[in-house]
């Protein structure tokens, strides 16, 4: 992907300010600091080197030491007064502050929490007036004090220990699995554990509210360097079967919360939701919950499968004299 021009401009100016404070810094260190490749560092420096005040003659341009660059180091010789660090724009301050406040909502009272609070204080100083807009934003965390499962998973992540879970899948199967934890994700409401499941021999997403019991084993977790973490709270639905649901307007809230769903408007406020389904049990849970807010499901074999499940359930009520 091509980097947007404002992002690159911001980084080049940040780099000038950084190099003012850090003379003769190895290219490798700059690349780590700004989280870009060494090739990109050099490309940025080459651009800065030919930039300057109109005229663009020697003396008008930002200048670096070529002798140092030959030794893989960067030294700024002339910044053309472009070495002031840039202040945060209101949009940048709000995006970072609201993210920090959201993080705070997911943490228990401990050192981690006070570190985030400190960071918020520093960021407010840095942002000045730009921080004002963040005060109008409230993030509601649905934290249950009694739930110690996230804390135990974090402990295992920090120590690199393996976990033993008793887990209820979407299809209501309870299994015991040994899992090497890779990442603990939350969307502010629910928690998800991404881990290498030794039972499934692959990466799996686990909803923490479906973990009945979690034990930190006295055994180190294996390293899984090949696993690429997507950072998504839902499993990858790109290669899933595409299912189309026609939903009543009342179910709009539901369609809106699915990250990869496509919504199109139909007549009279009905909408069509197209969503990738990996696990039919997941779809079944959703369609049963929505009930009469779903008026059609495609493809037909999926619709028939769901209908058969529902009929079987209604029959059970009937034989017990409850329906």
């Amino acid at each position, binding site marked *: 992907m091509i980097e947007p021009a404002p992002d690159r401009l911001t980084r080049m100016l940040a780099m000038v300010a950084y190099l003012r404070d850090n003379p003769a810094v190895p290219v490798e260190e700059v690349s780590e600091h700004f989280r870009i490749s060494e090739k990109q560092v050099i490309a940025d420096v080459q651009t800065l080197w030919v930039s300057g*005040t109109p005229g663009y003659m020697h003396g008008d341009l930002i200048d670096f030491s070529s002798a140092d660059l030959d030794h893989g180091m960067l030294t700024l010789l002339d910044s053309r007064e472009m070495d002031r660090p840039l202040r945060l724009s209101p949009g940048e301050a709000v995006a970072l502050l609201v993210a920090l406040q959201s993080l705070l909502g997911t943490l228990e009272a401990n050192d981690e929490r006070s570190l985030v609070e400190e*960071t918020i204080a520093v960021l407010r100083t840095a942002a000045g007036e730009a921080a004002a807009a963040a005060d109008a934003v409230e993030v509601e965390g649905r934290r249950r004090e009694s739930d110690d499962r996230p804390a135990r998973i974090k402990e295992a992540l920090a120590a690199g220990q393996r976990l033993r879970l008793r887990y209820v899948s979407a299809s209501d199967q309870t299994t015991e699995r040994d899992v090497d934890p890779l990442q603990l994700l939350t969307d502010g409401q629910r928690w998800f554990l991404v881990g290498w499941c030794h039972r499934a021999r692959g990466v799996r997403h686990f909803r923490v*509210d479906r973990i009945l019991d979690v034990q930190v084993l006295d055994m180190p977790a294996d390293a899984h360097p090949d696993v690429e973490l997507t950072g998504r709270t839902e499993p990858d639905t790109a290669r899933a079967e595409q299912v189309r649901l026609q939903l009543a307007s009342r179910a709009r809230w539901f369609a809106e919360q699915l990250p990869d769903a496509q919504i199109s408007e139909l007549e009279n406020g009905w909408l069509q939701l197209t969503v990738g389904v990996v696990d039919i049990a997941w779809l079944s849970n959703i369609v049963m919950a929505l009930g009469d807010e779903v008026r059609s499901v495609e493809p037909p074999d999926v619709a028939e499968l769901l209908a058969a499940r529902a009929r079987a359930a209604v029959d*059970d009520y009937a034989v017990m004299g*409850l329906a």
Partner: protein
Amino acid sequence: MRERVDASERMLDLVIALSHTRHRMTKDDIRTKVNGYRDSASHEAFERMFERDKEHLRELGIPIVTLTDAVHEDDIGYRIDTAAYTLPPIDLTPAQMGVLSVAAEVWQDSAFAASAQRGLTKLRAVAGGTSTAAPGVALRMRAPDPAMTDLLQAITERAPVRFTYRAAYSGETTVRTVEPWRVHARDRGWYLVGHDRDRDAQRSFRTSRIIGKVHRVGEPGSITIPESRPPTPERVFRTPVRLAIRPESAAALRARGSVDSSMDTPSGVRDVVTLDVSDVENLADEVAGYGAAVVVLDPPELREAVLRRLRAVAALGGAQ
């Protein structure tokens, strides 16, 4: 020089030129002197380029100041006051930079995600050392909708707004005029809370249902935001529920209640599980998902709510 200058390189030269100019530069000065603008094909191409760059720089917090000449009022000039865009002196520890790196990853692909990353880049300019991060723990949130930036700005400036809104139930669109008070995130969605002028009452708007642009319809400072915030209602656990659950099923429901007894039914033995819930409709969603594995014994309103859902889904198949 090269045929085409990259937009970031052009903006860099513009920033340097406008920060160094003694007094100001006119558009003509910029077009004839600043690298990257010199090769614009036409007057119109230059205008478009300059306006876009100005807008980008404003978003980055480097506003271009417009100056008019006292003698020739039509003759507009531009400059950048570098002192005004400097970050105040701050001291960021590697641990705090680590927290900020985690925070910058919170937003899933959106304008908020890009803003957070740019903010982080700016802070890296003054942070020494490599950041340290807590391993593995991450927060991922659905970022606010495009309307959010305009709404927050209107709130900060105390200005009323007007927008087109799609109602959740009817799907109908209406134009609403609102005094915006605050924004909050709840149930994975973003809401604007404010005073709806047409209905003369406090209303909450889901920002994803705002269609198109948010327009200002009043002067800054023309509204007052009430200080008091309604307390968030505590969750109360009240309604007692009895469920008949098939053996080995619905472990997640069992974990929230207790198994009292077991019963024989024509479809086999079931455990009777009791639990207390605050929201019957919410539980109906969950219970319906278990299909035949869970039958509601009490209360009748929960049973009806579940059956209503099941009957509706039963009608979806071909054998209706």
